[in-house]
């Protein structure tokens, strides 16, 4: 493989990546009439009407709100429990530590479909069905092990001398943890946040199962966009565009941490 062959592969793949995205954008700015009419590669009379409909229709913007809510809750819970756990794994040995770590990872290997029914029954039984909290907790099954795994890798790379220095300086553990340790690991937390978001925002099966009428997430609303005149492609495409944006924003904000994380991390 020569350098120029690989460049060609990259460029071709880049075009392959962009084409469907272009098409999505192009459909999002067309009216349904134009879409079902004559085919054209470029939009004839671009319009923002589809976006307007989404922003003005409660079904749509509530759905976005619901999704963002459970993603935020999930990320918060995941980080809140994974950080202490990762710190513990990286600094101490204890009875059953290796087995516990391994058990956590096996949860990542569980097919979500297996949990459909039990989750449905469980959350109904405790009265959390049809709430963002249910989806957030359900996603924790996958995001928490992943977070612990990523964070432990980074935390282990921070030398324990740091902990000792803080103790010698007379600072309590809480001061050390929140004012010294966590700020140093900003990159790690950024990477973890990215992966939690990446999983929770994109997941459909569990989100659909655990949401009823009042907490419908965007992923569900999008799979049912049929109006009287058939499939509302324009609005659907506009909704699609809007779901891509949070992802772009998240990766833009954590891009430096990602690069650092990839360079250091478990992968090498």
């Amino acid at each position, binding site marked *: 493989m020569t350098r120029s062959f690989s460049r060609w592969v990259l460029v071709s793949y880049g075009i392959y990546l962009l084409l469907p995205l272009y098409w999505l954008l192009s459909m999002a700015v067309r009216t349904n009439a134009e879409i079902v009419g004559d085919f054209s590669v470029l939009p004839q009379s671009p319009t923002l009407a589809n976006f307007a409909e989404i922003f003005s229709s409660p079904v749509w913007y509530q759905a976005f709100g619901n999704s963002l809510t459970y993603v935020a809750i999930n990320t918060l819970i995941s980080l809140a429990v994974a950080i202490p756990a990762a710190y513990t794994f990286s600094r101490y040995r204890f009875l059953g530590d290796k087995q516990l770590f391994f058990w956590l990872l096996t949860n990542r290997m569980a097919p979500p479909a297996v949990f459909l*029914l039990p989750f449905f029954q469980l959350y109904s039984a405790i009265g959390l069905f049809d709430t963002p909290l249910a989806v957030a907790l359900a996603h924790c099954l996958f995001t928490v092990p992943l977070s612990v795994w990523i964070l432990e890798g980074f935390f282990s790379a921070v030398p324990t001398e740091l902990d000792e220095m803080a103790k010698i300086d007379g600072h309590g553990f809480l001061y050390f943890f929140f004012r010294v340790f966590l700020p140093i690991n900003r990159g790690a937390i950024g990477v973890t946040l990215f992966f939690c978001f990446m999983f929770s925002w994109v997941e459909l099966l569990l989100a659909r199962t655990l949401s009823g009428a009042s907490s419908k997430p965007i992923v569900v609303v999008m799979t049912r966009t049929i109006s009287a005149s058939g499939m509302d492609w324009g609005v659907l495409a506009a909704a699609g565009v809007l779901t891509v944006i949070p992802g772009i924003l998240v990766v833009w904000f954590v891009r430096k941490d990602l690069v650092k994380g990839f360079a250091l991390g478990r992968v090498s």
Partner: protein
Amino acid sequence: MSSFKPHDNRAWLGVLPVVLIVGFSAVIPLMTVLNYSVQDILDFNSRFFVGFQWYRETLHDPRFLSAFVRQITFSLTVLLIEIPLGIAVAKGIPKTGRLTPLILILLALPLLIPWNVVATIWQIFARPDIGLLGVGINALGISYNYTSEPLHAWLTLVAMDVWHWTSLVALLSFAGLTAIQLPFYQAAELDGANKWQVFRLVELPRLRGVLIIAILLRLMDSFMIYTEPFVLTGGGPGDTTTFLSQYLATMAVGQFDLGPAAAFSVIYFLFILLFCWLFYTSVALDDDS
């Protein structure tokens, strides 16, 4: 993990929150599933213990077996395309320069799109009436229609999965490649090694770690795939693109056959664990340490 860590069982306090949350989400449901898998549940009040009957039935169920075969075919196909393609794409990314962060962000995009939106994008893209790809292929004279032709449905699903996940392999491989220090390339140049030898002897050994992760992740996730085929083809035409997750979902939620569904779930989970374990040990045994 270094060996300088003190042993302290009070550390369990630190991991307790994680254990509680994951345990709540994992243990209770799994116990439920195991419980159901060995019972015949006619209705809320009448259940009978039936031992391994559901397991036997599932393993002999022709629809289960065909879904299983389809699943394996799909997973192997996408793996065989995504791994080499991902490595090739990674090799094309300049290791330094202003373009590099932009390229990485572009590659990360498909990974950040909700899975149903991925399928929706491809729906719109591949439809023979309104899609750029669909119209384009039909304009070349091929009557392409992924909703009515099983082969077309398969090809479109594979193309969509490649579009969706190759970036993961590419980004992981890029991370591995950038970790290789310059002297290794220099030495190969002075030895007179050709490009293929440089790839095989300098780069591939160092990519081993990331490739194991990439293959494991893709193997697992493609085996669990649900959303994308569901939205794009609905499992059709007929059941030609119905893979394991969808079959299970239909059984569990649609038809309320709790016992067989539970048995299916257990078998499904065990298979994935088995694949992962087999792959990991065969690769780990490769190391003579």
